[in-house]
């Protein structure tokens, strides 16, 4: 049964993730007054990339990509999608956040293993950006955990019987959403992959199969990140309403990023530690004082 649920989660991640990415490209194009690719473009991209013969920079390069994809797949399996929970009771928020880091580390290692300094710069930036967004995000989440007295994600979701956490703790919700933008690596927080500056950063040496696998990893990561936000802040949902909420969040994020320019990396950290972090502390203070709606 667990195996089936895991497969269901992974397949959802794969199909919905790639579809929504395609839709996002479409939306982005429309905002920028272009026609844009079809919604299934990302499926084409992934399979095309996977089927080509590329180049590899040695075993650590390959291993890093495997570790990245494997880590993210493992993470995704723990994320509850509405009422679809692969491992009930074990979906601890910290596990998900830190298991997620395995994938990130794998990617970073593989890409730096390619020996291209652009990749190293990109990874250094990505890690720095992580230092920026993770702290306010985790503090905001910690407020929620403290309030509901559980750290299980599905537990957090089920606890929102009367109202959504977003309305109970609006400031925390906003903080988490801003952090989510950073996690997604969308503009204005796409410094790590800035194509014009550092030749797409980590991805600079990727080709063919490797590119394809990493695109998959990216899709799954996005899925994990948004799912967590939906589960924790947007009320109880079953599988279908979950996907609906997911789509809405994704589209909002896309719309925001479509109209913004890029931050410099130290601006990212400064911003996150000034605005969202202080807001997160304000929220936490409210939680401690019991000022929760």
């Amino acid at each position, binding site marked *: 049964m667990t195996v089936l649920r895991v497969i269901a989660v992974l397949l959802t991640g794969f199909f919905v993730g790639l579809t929504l990415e395609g839709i996002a490209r479409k939306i982005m194009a429309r905002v920028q007054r272009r026609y844009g690719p079809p919604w299934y473009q990302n499926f084409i991209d992934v399979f095309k990339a996977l089927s080509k013969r590329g180049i590899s920079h040695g075993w650590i390069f390959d291993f890093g990509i495997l570790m990245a994809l494997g880590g993210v797949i493992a993470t995704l399996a723990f994320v509850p999608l509405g009422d679809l929970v692969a491992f009930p009771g*074990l979906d601890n928020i910290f596990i998900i956040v830190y298991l997620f880091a395995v994938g990130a580390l794998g990617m970073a290692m593989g890409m730096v293993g390619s020996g291209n300094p652009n990749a190293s710069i990109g990874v250094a930036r990505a890690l720095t950006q992580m230092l920026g967004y993770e702290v306010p995000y985790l503090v905001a989440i910690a407020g929620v955990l403290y309030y509901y007295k559980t750290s299980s994600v599905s537990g957090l979701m089920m606890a929102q019987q009367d109202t959504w956490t977003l309305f109970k703790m609006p400031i925390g919700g906003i903080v988490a959403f801003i952090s989510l933008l950073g996690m997604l690596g969308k503009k204005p927080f796409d410094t790590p992959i800035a194509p014009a500056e550092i030749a797409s950063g980590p991805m600079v040496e990727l080709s063919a199969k490797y590119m394809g696998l990493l695109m998959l990893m990216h899709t799954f990561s996005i899925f994990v990140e948004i799912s967590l936000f939906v589960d924790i802040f947007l009320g109880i949902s079953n599988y279908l309403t979950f996907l609906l909420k997911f789509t809405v969040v994704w589209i909002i994020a896309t719309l925001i990023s479509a109209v913004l320019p890029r931050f410099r990396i130290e601006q990212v950290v400064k911003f996150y530690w000034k605005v969202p972090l202080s807001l997160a502390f304000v929220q936490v203070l409210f939680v401690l004082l019991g000022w929760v709606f």
Partner: protein
Amino acid sequence: MISLTNLILVFLIGSIVSYLLTKANKILGSIFNFLLISYALYVVWNIKVGHEEVLFRILRDVERTLKVTNLGKYFAIVSLIVISFVAFFIIEWIRKKDIKPAAFNSFLLLMVSGILGVFFSNDLLTLYIFWEIAVLGSFLIVPMGKKESKRAAIIYVVTSAIGSYMYLFATFSIYQRYGILSFEQVSQYLANDSSNLFKWFVILFIASAGIAKSGIFPLHTWLRITHGNAPDAFSAVLSGQLVKMGSYVLAIALSVFPTTQLFSSFYHGVPLLNYVLIWLGNISILIGTFMAIRQNDMKQLIAFSSIANGGYILVGLGIMNSIGYAGGLFHVFNHAIAAAMIFLSFAAVVYRTGTTKIDEMGGLIWRMPWTFVTYLVGIISLAGIPPTSGFISKWMIFSSLVSKGMFITLAITFIGSVGSFLYVFRPLAGVFLGQLKRKHSDVKEVPIIMLVPMLLFVILTILIGVYPKPVLDSIVSIENEVGIKAIEHSGTIIKTPLGQWNTLTVFTMFSVGFIIAAILYMIFPKGKKVDLTDQYTGGEYLYNYDLYHYATGFYRFIERLYDKHPSFEKLYEKLVSFFRYIGYFTYKLVYKTSPSGYVFWITIVILILFWVRW
């Protein structure tokens, strides 16, 4: 079974034997060291908790005894695992290393004898005596390292002395007030003592020995220079073991003297004293993390990370609830193993390349893959990423902080945790990945004897990460011993009031994910293997690929934000030069003047005495 007293004596005598053996043959002496330390591990492993021995007497009415407690046994086993592995590493390492091998081996055993005594002391004074022996042994080894290690040793011993003398001061105050020194009795007397001030003073002063040793702010400055410059293999012992002696004293100060019962709650069941210590831990985490990000010397980088991790341990222990205390203790194990394996892998790198500067290396993974694996698993554990054991303790500490609602501390531990991703990646990218330097093109992997302990550490870390039961069991017995509610666990599932998780499921799922990825990888066409120099260069033709490597100023963009940070090392240097200035002033004024100056001083003394007396 040999008694503990005899074991300690064997080590004291063994240090002389080891000197002679190593004089005769370096490798023979090192093997002797390894066997002796492994034997100690065997003895300690099998020793019964509650076992008592009378040692010797110094003060009247105080029985000097050794007593095996769960806490001490846990720390002793962790320490001896680390030291015995390192001792095995040394068998090969000492062959090439340009140090004084005989003295090195001999002092190592002297240090171990002190360590054994520290963990099994039943009273404050015995602990102090063995503590100083351990400090002496380690102090003598430190200056055999790099050029700056001479200064490092002094800073180390002075910082240590500040802490341990404060400890001694408190010890004698206790002895004066109660007339007893054994931990149990002291904690009983403290519980009945009405003077809050005295309790504060005693616990803070006793904790200060631990603060100095485990590199907690404000006595953290010695770690950078000492760990950074000590002999390479010994840095593993310093960071993996000696620092844990400090954690042991902190654990005693906080839990054996039951702080939560001695003081009233200040914030959600945490007394103010613990809160102060937690804040010291917080500051250590911040300093350790942000300074580690800046370092270009890999050993100094991990030295700063030791400061941060010492802070984690203190935060965990300071919370003093079931899960936080367990997290702190578990982190002792994790950091001991992780730091030891990281420093050993660095020692291996230095063994082959002779440098510790990150930007002087690169691409060593192609020459030393197993060393790289050791480092990789080490940092995964250090950064607290599942499926290694490092995550378990961090998770426990986070959980307890959330349940206590200590959000600022929580934020700081998050910074420390995410920051650790940053700084551990710097040597990874700079030393092991990237372009291989031309001068390192004929570097070889280290010999098998050095690899064995490193890889054993790797296995141990992952094993405990997947199956943490042995460590959790000892933590449960420690918690029962000091009267904290024990954590609930069933082998691989760890339960907290906030929820649970299963290490085995996580590991299995990770393996499954990895297998899925591997299947995908295999069904699609194989890539062509190209040289490391076959790179995207933006169309430039490169003559020197040594320079096509990003390692200098790796995090420059974030370092820039705190370039003007206050430096405690400089502050302390100022303090020292102030003392030196007073000394110089005295010297000039009193001791170096002409005879007429002396007459002046005699007159002054007479005048003062007359004024005081009449």
